[in-house]
């Protein structure tokens, strides 16, 4: 939501002043990862509900669900992240939304989606652990809510399929004006990263922590790469993705699952021969190993004209979704900073009044924890000392029975609640694929419930604070 206009993307122009809301707590997906706390349903559970049908390397996973009024589609392609390809790959989904063979400019294409009861489409590149992804989403009202005999899903799915399979390529290349326009927009997008200080500081902390690693490659790519991107080179990038990635299509819909599956395949038929699972897709995510032995964290201080300083810290845990200690890591992060009863909230905010937000976030795939707090610059030493004291307290096993219980309750609630959003199950399916470990929600929750203080101490003893990033006031 870097450059978004609140209220707009919801498609409801009228937001009833929603952007003026001032919250008691900063809601920042604290438990694990950016999209919900996805770790819950593993493959075991999914196999009961998701029905998968594959043709070539196109895999359509359908989950029938009466609870939603919308049909939701999420298409994902994935490749190991590459420093040389990252920027062009980030640009690609934006250019794909510029037109298809049938609707050759973006306004015609968007009007076609709008005409289907406002079918909403998005296309973006993402970073998931060591993988770069291209993700397209579609949401459209289920046929039954818009009238008899209407085939909204099929029409919207065909449009989406065209975006991916039949882009507008006059003379075999993307239109020059479209590519130039998107390059310029992306240059601005990169420049504008500094506008949102909270996410900017977060991104910088990732870069500082993971410099030289695949995960340290910027999610949005690099401005320096932009001049090398041409209408023709982008076609190469497009073909590289089609040939080098499987296509996973997740569909959650109240419509008839058999019909939905057929309509999805009909829309994606041209891609069946094109998508190939290379060695790339079988690679399994690697968890960042914890630092061995004590060493001082890397400290980076950056200056900018800001009212509030941002303190971010990066930690390695050596434990990931596939590890045996993963349930204990969830509890560790919960005790540290995922909830309002967590140590960071209680000690940094409630007791010392140093911050409005002070929390920790777990990157499940990489086993990294990121701590963030907005503070007064002069309180840096004090805040950092309090945070490090919380890490030490967990190493010493200072965990009250109440805190342990509340954390387990909180994790359970988070997992269950996120199942009320259609893309959550798809996310979990992806995690299981990436980590090569199936986990059912029941088994994971059981394991969380069995975590002891000794387990938490074992995880804590391997956690290393490896990066400190401070954004503070002052001229550059």
């Amino acid at each position, binding site marked *: 939501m870097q450059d978004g206009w609140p209220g707009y993307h919801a498609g409801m122009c009228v937001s009833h002043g929603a952007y003026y*809301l001032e919250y008691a707590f900063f809601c920042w997906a604290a438990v694990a990862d950016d999209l919900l706390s996805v770790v819950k349903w593993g493959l075991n559970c999914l196999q009961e509900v998701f029905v998968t049908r594959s043709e070539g390397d196109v895999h359509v996973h359908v989950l029938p669900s009466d609870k939603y009024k919308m049909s939701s589609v999420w298409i994902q392609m994935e490749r190991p992240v590459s420093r040389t390809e990252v920027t062009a790959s980030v640009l690609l989904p934006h250019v794909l939304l510029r037109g298809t063979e049938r609707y050759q400019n973006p306004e015609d294409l968007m009007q076609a989606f*709008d005409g289907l009861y406002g079918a909403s489409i998005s296309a973006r590149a993402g970073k998931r652990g060591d993988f770069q992804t291209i993700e397209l989403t579609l949401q459209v009202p289920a046929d039954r809510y818009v009238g008899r005999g209407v085939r909204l899903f099929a029409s919207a799915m065909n449009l989406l399929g065209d975006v991916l399979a039949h882009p507008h390529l006059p003379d075999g290349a993307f239109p020059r004006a479209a590519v130039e326009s998107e390059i310029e927009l992306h240059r601005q997008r990169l420049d*504008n*990263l500094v*506008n949102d200080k909270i996410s900017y500081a977060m991104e910088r902390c990732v870069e500082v922590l993971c410099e030289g690693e695949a995960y340290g490659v910027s999610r949005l790519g690099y401005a320096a790469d932009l001049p090398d991107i041409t209408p023709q080179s982008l076609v190469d990038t497009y073909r590289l993705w089609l040939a080098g990635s499987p296509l996973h299509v997740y569909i959650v819909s109240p419509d008839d699952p058999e019909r939905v599956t057929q309509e999805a395949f009909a829309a994606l038929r041209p891609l069946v021969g094109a998508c190939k699972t290379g060695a790339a897709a079988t690679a399994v995510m690697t968890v960042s190993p914890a630092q061995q032995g004590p060493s001082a964290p890397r400290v980076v201080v950056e200056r900018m004209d*800001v009212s*509030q300083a941002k303190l971010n810290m990066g930690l390695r845990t050596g434990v990931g979704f596939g590890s045996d200690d993963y349930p204990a890591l969830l509890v560790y992060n919960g005790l540290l900073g995922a909830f309002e009863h967590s140590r960071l909230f209680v000690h940094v905010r409630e007791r010392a*009044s140093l911050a409005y937000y002070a929390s920790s976030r777990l990157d499940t795939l990489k086993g990294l924890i990121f701590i963030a707090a907005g503070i007064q610059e002069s309180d840096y030493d004090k805040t950092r000392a309090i945070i490090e004291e919380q890490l030490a307290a967990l190493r010493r096993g200072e965990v009250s029975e109440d805190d342990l219980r509340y954390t387990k309750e909180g994790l359970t609630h988070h997992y269950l609640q996120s199942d009320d959003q259609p893309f959550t199950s798809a996310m979990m399916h992806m995690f299981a694929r990436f980590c090569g470990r199936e986990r059912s929600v029941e088994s994971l929750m059981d394991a969380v419930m069995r975590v002891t203080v000794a387990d938490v101490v074992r995880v804590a003893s391997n956690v290393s604070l490896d990066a400190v990033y401070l954004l503070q006031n002052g001229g*550059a």
Partner: protein
Amino acid sequence: MNTVDYTRLGESLTHEELENGLQVYILPKNDFRQTYACFTTHYGSLDQVFRDPETREEVRMPDGIAHFLEHKMFEKEHGDVFRLFSRSGAQPNAYTSFDLTTYLFSCTSRVTENITTLLDFVQEPYFTDESVEREKGIIRQELLMYQDNANRRAMYGLLGAYYGSSPLATPVGGTVESIEEITKDDLYRCYRAFYHPGNMILFVVGRADVAEVLQLVTSNQEAKGFARRARPEHILPEGSARPEQKFTETRLAVAQPRVAFGFKQTDVPLSARDRQVNEEATGIWMDALLGRGSPLFHKLVDDGLCDMGFGADYELTSHYGYSMMGGNSRKPLELAERVKDALLAQCDSDFPEEAFLRTKRKAIGRFLGLLDSPQAIASLYTSLKLRDMDLFATLDVLQELTVADVQNAMRSHVLEDQFASSVVWPSGAQA
């Protein structure tokens, strides 16, 4: 107990007004895992001045007090309320806006226990001098965080142009100076004025047994013995019809200017139904003329005047209304002029019928999508109800909407004299 079935939508809403005046709404969605409840008082940052229901005198409070009160409600004599919710695995929060304060939780178990916690903590204030002072440090950091947010600064800049020094242009949370004045006694006074059940709405959505929840809430309220009382008198700020200023600007560490511009509404429709029609009609002309499917939007992008985040929004209550458009722009003044000129020109010709039909369908689809979110249903239903509107009437309003409604809404809003804009320029000091 009054239950309305929205058969086309597959939803049913139960409403009951309790003896003490509390409005209770329950919308069961039993295939969801969560229960989401919000408890809202009709009290926000606009209520700086009000008539004390006990003394009948007119009282003026420091800016940001409604939001401060919201923060302080979470602290009790025997510890924090978060811990009570944590104990039963629930996730609480709260927010304050111009005209309301909401306390909420979501949970996936122990629904009755959590509803009781919600009602009890909001109905048992506990403030001390010491805890009020401690909260000032936290809220100061919250306000400083907002100060670094270019979007907020542009929006409040535009509200400042529309409304001058009115509370309508003052940040909901107040300022780092104004919150320093707040005392424990102020908080109690505002609490007593606005937190009576007769001024409040409870909305429960998700997994819920309607009869059981209603019974629980009724007996919880009866036990507290609130006497029925007249609603508090809101004394809302008066202002001029025209914008106070045509233009405001400020500087911030951003890479690119950010602009907000729009029109200040002159006449607000008297009936709530007319306002609802007006809101939907406005949403449609904005989307048709400025949305992703509009020729103008893509022209602005390709001419380098805005990026994909450009958007438009509209706010209308019984007292005020305005539009707000904009986003990041290297040429913010040119962008504002181009959009204004295009909208003024459109007012002189017939509204395109095809675009009207397309965006109307889109609005219907998006309304259906909103019903998949318990949180969106609860918060939107409540905020509309406080403005005497009905969220579930949206579908009817949209279906009955005509191109003439859209044309009228646009012509009564897009007026040269009502235009204002606000820019946040890069300070030049960023890295």
